[in-house]
């Protein structure tokens, strides 16, 4: 299957499922909807309300609802969502949206594979994302530079070391391509938001939508920080990932932690909302504790000094490389991820490896 031979015919169902495709956007342009229309017409109100609903669901439950039959409204709601996200301009919210959205796309693509409609996957990979892909026998070869930038994780069967890699190409199945495209589409959606030209003055109802969603998002983040405080004060250790629980235990019992262990623990605690003083109190029991040096370091981590960059804690891969992680936590690639999920009542399952 080469790019010249490929001709993909998109149905209205496809537009609803893959509104990020240029063909879908063109369809929307043909309808002649303007930003003003979005704010002042009744159709615009429906679209705006749908977009707000989508965004609210993403904030609340990290899910994006499946599209319904009205594909034009679906495409319009998608782009309206991107516009609102661009207006709010919060990187974390945009990522959250892209993650939830691309999970649906993955689902649809898996269904295509089951029906044998490989051409759609090929189309998205090659024509939209610019990946180098070739069909080979029952599967696909994808160029390693495209593979690694869409790799879901760096352990286990996805790791390059466990795959067939030949002259720059990695062998994968069509199902695996569907999973890689989830990451590809996620990054693509983030870039779409980044490239939106938000006019300096938005029409009233659109502006109100931006404010509404922005408020919902900050109050959500506020809730999580409040939970973080209770964890510390009531020592609800169940919400902490096993690696942090262990570091906390060692530190509290007076054991000497290595520098990277201390950094890992301190940056995690700062990230979940503990103050510099609270973190210092914890480290006070170290045999080599020195108030001035420790305060300097923790303030640095919290972004109060020097480059004023708040340091983010190590992710699981790094924790493993540093010898600070001997667990496997299901679907978790960052300690903060574990914590936020646990705080919402969905404690990830984990097992100790040795």
């Amino acid at each position, binding site marked *: 299957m080469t790019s010249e031979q490929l001709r993909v015919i998109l149905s209205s169902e496809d537009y609803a499922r893959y509104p990020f495709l240029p063909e879908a956007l063109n369809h929307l342009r043909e309808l002649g909807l303007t930003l003003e229309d979005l704010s002042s017409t009744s159709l615009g109100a429906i679209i705006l309300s749908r977009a707000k609903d989508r965004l609210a669901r993403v904030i609340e439950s990290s899910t994006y609802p499946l599209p319904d039959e009205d594909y034009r409204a679906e495409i319009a709601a998608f782009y309206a969502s991107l516009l609102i996200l661009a207006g709010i301009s919060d990187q974390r919210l945009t990522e959250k949206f892209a993650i939830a959205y691309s999970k649906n796309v993955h689902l649809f693509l898996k269904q295509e594979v089951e029906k044998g409609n490989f051409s759609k996957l090929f189309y998205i990979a090659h024509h939209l994302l610019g990946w180098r892909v070739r069909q080979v026998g029952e599967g696909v070869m994808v160029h390693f*530079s495209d593979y*690694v930038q869409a*790799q879901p994780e*760096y352990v286990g069967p996805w790791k390059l*070391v*466990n795959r*067939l890699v030949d*002259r720059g*190409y990695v062998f994968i199945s069509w199902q695996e391509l569907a999973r890689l495209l989830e990451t590809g589409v996620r990054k693509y959606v983030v870039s779409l938001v980044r490239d939106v030209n938000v006019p300096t003055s938005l029409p009233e109802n659109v502006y109100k939508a931006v404010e509404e969603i922005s408020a919902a998002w900050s109050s959500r983040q506020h809730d999580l920080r409040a939970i973080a405080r209770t964890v510390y004060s009531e020592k609800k250790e169940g919400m902490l990932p096993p690696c942090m629980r262990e570091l906390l235990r060692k530190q509290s019992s007076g054991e000497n932690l290595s520098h990277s262990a201390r950094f890992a623990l301190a940056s995690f605690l700062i990230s979940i909302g503990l103050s510099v003083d609270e973190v210092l109190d914890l480290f006070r029991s170290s045999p080599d504790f020195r108030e001035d040096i420790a305060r300097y370091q923790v303030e640095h981590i919290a972004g109060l000094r020097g*480059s004023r960059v708040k340091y983010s804690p190590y992710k699981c891969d790094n924790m493993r490389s540093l010898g600070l992680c001997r667990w496997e936590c299901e679907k978790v690639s960052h300690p903060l991820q574990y914590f936020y999920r646990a705080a919402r009542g969905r404690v990830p399952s984990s097992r100790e490896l040795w």
Partner: protein
Amino acid sequence: MFKSYYRRTSIPPPPMVESREFGFQFFDSQSMLRHLAFSSGEELNRFLRERVPRHAYYSTALYEHPSAPDMSEKGWRGAEVVFDIDIDHVYTPCKDLHDSWKCLDCGAEGRGAPLKCPACGSEKLERSNWVCNLCINAAREEILKLLDFLELDFGISRKEMRVYFSGHRGFHLHVESEDVLPLEQDVRRELSDYVRGLGLDPETLLKRTRSGKYSLRYGVDAPGWPGRIAKYVALILAEDPSSRGGTPPELPLGAWKELISRAVDELGVKIDEKVTIDTRRLIRLPWTLHGKTGLRVVEFSVGELEAFTAEDLLGKAIVFSQEETRVRMPKRPKRVLFYELEEDGEVIRVPFYLAVYLHANGGAEILDWRPG
């Protein structure tokens, strides 16, 4: 002498020199001068001739504003992928002949290059490290293994790779292909894990057989690690008289895990992963002199790496005179470069370029100076 080298040589600048950050260390101080940028090769060479640095480095990364003093203001625009083969990370038996250490905590001393003090466990060791042709051979084996992975597995052509002698204890391989420039840290770690064989799961290579044991899923013609492991297993088992030739071997899982682990240990490349993972590394500037040795960071083609002896490889890095000179060095390594130093007496006779090495890396006193 460094001065005369830079005066008579014109260093070819790295590609896209105007986007690189440069760093230098000088003879009169320990600190590093950073955030320097040059708009051309001539400007760079003028600096080298005027300031004569002890060590010269350049960034693997390309920046919008390389001379910005704040990392966040430089504007990262991608970076080469670099692999560093350093003898520090490869076991070589000759280290006992030329390396020595002294513990700063308990005062114990000894030969070789241990990670911790064997007496008290401290990591604060004062080290004296040297390189010899045996070390270089070991490093060369590793770099050839690496080239194999990059060419056969990743399809990176020789035109897109450059290999340099590091100036002291190993080699650097730079990949300049457009495909790798934008790669982030995670991806670089993945590439580094790949050539090291880190994270290889033996069970992905095996399949269950009818007798309840396991055999390899892939044959010797398979690409990537599966093929390499299959070849290794075939060689190992061919040496074993009890194995039946021809049919794919069936072994219990435990035996496979052991075999595969040995294969990874032998076939994996011993790189210093920190260098590869770093997206903003300052690495030694090719064709400049290494301050501890007086040898230059010289480029080798793959053909040269394959065919040259260690002596030839080191020889290409020598810039100073061969004339014999006398050097006073009471405590000295037994073996350095391709020489075995005499055991007796404080004063020995060596070629001048070796004298420079002994002086720069070991504080030896050069008694007869020769023109550089």
